[in-house]
């Protein structure tokens, strides 16, 4: 008698890991996009900077963020393991291989698209996450009139800033915060980064047009009644709306702000 191999050493088990981490990353994209839409608010970054503080200091969000970092790493590592196995499975290549007549380009090049995204994620985290966590962003003070709702702001020097602080006095709410909004504005004046961000969103679109529905297929969910809606969400939400929403941010700061 022999026992079946442990699930994580099997091809299907590893693909399950790819599928679940991938879907988790998809769910993150939705939250990330909705939150970042505050960049378009015409309030000198008041909403966005408060949101940035909340997202980096609220304990449950922090737990989820570590899950997220782990998911990115696991998704990439497992992709590498599976790709190496796949290369080994065909040691002699075809002289002619007509892939386009039986499958979509993006479905055959998920690794290339994923590598572009990995480079993008590293750059993106250096641009904002690293700078925010290492005190390399400017500081700002907002004064909000609680009766009229008008917001005025002034830049703070490093010596004037101690920590994120909200005080209310005499109908005036004063907020001192790290100005990630300004950092975003500053970063997206760099045309090279704007191009990288937009190209990466194209890669994201093609990665998810295949990846979203592929993840459902891998967990075994391919039901005639629901596959249509899954494909629709994969293409139109994750392949079109979300990448356009993200790409709009660097373009907005470069061309309009």
């Amino acid at each position: 008698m022999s026992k079946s191999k442990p699930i994580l050493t099997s091809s299907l088990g590893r693909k399950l890991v790819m599928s679940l981490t991938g879907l988790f990353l998809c769910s993150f994209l939705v939250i990330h996009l909705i939150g970042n839409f505050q960049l378009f608010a015409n309030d000198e970054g008041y909403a966005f900077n408060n949101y940035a503080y909340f997202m980096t200091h609220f304990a449950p969000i922090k737990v989820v963020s570590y899950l997220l970092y782990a998911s990115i790493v696991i998704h990439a590592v497992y992709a590498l393991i599976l790709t190496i196995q796949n290369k080994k499975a065909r040691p002699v290549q075809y002289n002619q291989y007509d892939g386009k007549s039986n499958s979509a380009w993006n479905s055959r090049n998920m690794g290339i698209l994923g590598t572009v995204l990995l480079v993008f994620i590293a750059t993106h985290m250096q641009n904002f996450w690293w700078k925010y966590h290492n005190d390399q962003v400017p500081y700002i003070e907002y004064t909000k009139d609680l009766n009229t709702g008008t917001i005025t702001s002034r830049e703070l020097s490093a010596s004037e800033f101690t920590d994120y602080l909200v005080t209310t006095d005499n109908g005036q709410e004063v907020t001192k915060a790290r100005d990630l909004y300004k950092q975003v504005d500053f970063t997206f004046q760099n045309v090279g980064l704007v191009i990288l961000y937009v190209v990466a969103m194209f890669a994201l679109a093609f990665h998810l047009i295949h990846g979203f529905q592929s993840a459902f297929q891998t967990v075994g969910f391919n039901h005639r009644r629901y596959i249509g809606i899954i494909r629709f969400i994969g293409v139109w939400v994750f392949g079109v709306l979300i990448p356009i929403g993200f790409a709009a941010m660097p373009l907005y700061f470069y061309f309009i702000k």
Partner: protein
Amino acid sequence: MSGQMNLTLKVWRQKKENQKGQFVTYKANNISDDMSFLEMLDVVNEEITRKGEDPIYFDHDCREGICGMCSLVINGRPHGPKYGTTTCQLHMRSFHDGQTIVIEPWRAAAFPVLKDLAVDRTAFDRIQQAGGYVNVNTGGVPDANTIPIPKRIADEAFESATCIGCGACVAACKNASAMLFVSAKVSQFALLPQGQTERYERAQAMVDQMDAEGFGNCTNTGACEAECPVGIKLTNIARLNREYFTAKLFRQEDIHN
């Protein structure tokens, strides 16, 4: 009166397993467009034999599209340029006069080349032996149709059972994955009452054997479904995933040797 055509063939020639092979160019003259692809190769082989050379070795048997013995990657596509057909059912009218046709064997680590265009597909047999069977009681012959099976379930099982085990799915897949084959074999039994006894052991044993044979991992490109001569559907792969994960995560059982 059918047309005659002259073709140039680039054929993979390899003396035996583990030896280096190379492409050799042959002329195929006065080919009728009513011939099947294999008949065309027969004509070329007669010419080669007359010259006293070793004829091109290729697999074939029934020449009716039902045995799954013929193979060949023709101009980068398993079973040639038509969908839903085997090489023996491919006719020369699918080509045109003066065309160059590149003919290669299935390429996969699990399908080593035996000679020229013939590959060793016993990996499929071993996967079948690992779990693609049902146990039956000895004794009197049971009445046909004593077990009620809904028509739709029976139809679906029959659809899966049409797999002829030719290996085109492996040949078409960029990862040389055997998932379509294994999923068809698992599905036909998983759907029917007769297959329930070994249901979950079967999924585990066949996936284990598939991995052990060195096939690649499925990335859901759909190339297998597109190239399958008998139209096995990707829904089978989703079903295999369900069977396997259900077995592993909820019904872990030992496997019989």
